[in-house]
């Protein structure tokens, strides 16, 4: 029995070993690589650049950048404050409502704990929420509810559901099945099973994702103002319309400060809950 094996080994000794390539057929592999490179070059060639326009635009760009050296927090302080408060209110309310709705939908969208009809319904909600981009939803809701933070709040709540439910459901689907099984074996009812067997496993991620979503909601609230959904974005938009780059710079700096603070806070909290 050992002789044929030894022979096989002898033919392999001294032969260079290489990891098997991802695409086995050499001609296909090279066609794919060449095709991709060719497309990349062709794609770059189709981008038109009007160098005259760029030259003229440089001045405006410079004015914009220079405004950051002298940001004007004071002359529109009232507007900025109002916009900021509106954005924060929008962020907090939308995050709380969105997260509260996301949790049951997330549970329903996890195949390992929800029956098929519930799963399909919840996945449907998630899919719709994710398919509709925030700006599009905001435009629709502004059309329905008029200008102002209500449209922004609803938009962000809606977007939070798609984001958080999906990621929560995926975390539940990849949990350790045996831990949950052990709780089930004790005769626990469904709610207790979720509370003891599932929740402890997904809680850190849920908190981390929620913090991350609050962060995103604040940034989005700055964008949503551009389509009339209230918040600091509206103030920023007005500043641009008036060519008040110094005020715009002040607003952008504030947004950056808030986002970085949130980022820092969520980092601390996520480290704590592990």
């Amino acid at each position, binding site marked *: 029995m050992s002789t044929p094996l030894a022979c096989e080994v002898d033919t392999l000794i001294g032969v260079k070993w290489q990891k098997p390539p991802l695409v086995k057929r050499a001609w296909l592999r090279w066609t794919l690589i060449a095709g991709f490179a060719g497309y990349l070059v062709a794609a770059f060639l189709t981008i038109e650049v009007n160098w005259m326009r760029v030259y003229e635009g440089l001045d405006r760009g410079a004015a914009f950048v220079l405004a950051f050296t002298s940001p004007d927090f004071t002359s529109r302080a009232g507007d900025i404050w109002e916009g900021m408060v509106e954005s924060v209110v929008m962020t907090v309310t939308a995050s709380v409502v969105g997260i509260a709705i996301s949790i049951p939908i997330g549970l329903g969208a996890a195949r390992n704990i929800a029956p098929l009809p519930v799963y399909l319904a919840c996945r449907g909600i998630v899919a719709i929420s994710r398919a509709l981009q925030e700006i599009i939803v905001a435009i629709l809701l502004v059309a329905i509810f008029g200008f102002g933070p209500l449209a922004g709040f609803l938009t962000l709540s809606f977007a939070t559901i798609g984001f958080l439910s999906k990621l929560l459901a995926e975390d539940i689907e990849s949990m*350790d099945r*045996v*831990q949950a*099984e*052990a*709780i*089930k*074996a*004790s*005769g*626990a*009812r469904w*709610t*207790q*099973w979720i*509370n*003891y*067997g599932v929740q*402890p*496993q997904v*809680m*850190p991620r849920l908190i981390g994702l929620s913090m991350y979503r609050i962060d995103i909601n604040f940034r989005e609230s700055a964008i949503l103002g551009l389509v009339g959904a209230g918040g600091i974005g509206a103030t920023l938009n007005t500043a641009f319309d008036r060519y008040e780059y110094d005020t715009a710079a002040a607003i952008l700096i504030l947004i950056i400060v808030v986002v970085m603070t949130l980022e820092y806070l969520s980092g601390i909290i996520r480290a704590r809950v592990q």
Partner: protein
Amino acid sequence: MLRLKKLLKTYKTGDEALKSIDLEVPDGQVLALIGPSGAGKSTMIRCINRLVEPTSGEVWLDDTELTKLSSGALRQERRQMGMIFQEYALVERLTVMENVLSGRLGYVGFWRSFLRKFPQSDVDEAYRLLDRVGLLSMVDKRADELSGGQRQRVGICRALIQNPKLLLVDEPTASLDPKTSRQIMRLICELCAERGLAAIINIHDVALAQMFVSRVVGLRLGALEFDGAPQELTPDVLTTIYGEEDWEATIEKVEDDEEEQVA
């Protein structure tokens, strides 16, 4: 008394994990279920408390037939069956106390368990059990801070606090070192004797099984191949269960172990 009648499990993939198992386990008997990987040991244990739904056949726990029960009635019956798992299956982010008390979930309502307000008698019993297994000082530690042997002790407490009639034990020592394995097996068997519990212990370590139990059942490819006292496990029997191999060493080792214990 646990009785399995023509218990059969065929998975969706077509694998016949159990082929018509008939088995009786009287009250207070500790039984070791041995057999190679994939013989259906885990499936059999899980078919009893229906973590895996059997395809056909009957499971009788005293006078109740379990396979036809509604989910509510099944929950009631699951309280009678404590389960101990291979990789401990503690909820890692819960404390030792929460893990032990989770064995009482079948007896308390949702809000009580949600607020962690268990009846004082349950908490007292948890302290007593943790003291019995030597983990009283670990009560508020998180389960993932414990060593393997300690975790399995917590797992044992969780199963016992259910106040079960029967223990279903799935490879309790598979991820433990030899010394801890013996300690855990001894603890399980002692506790069963103290409380008059019946137990089915899945175990792949034949020598360890022979050391502690009074009855051994051998499973091979989903069918019972052997049912008898541990002394009756001869090389021939082990060959029918596991296939051709030199078994003298395994059996000799057992004898050595026993002498060592007597000494």
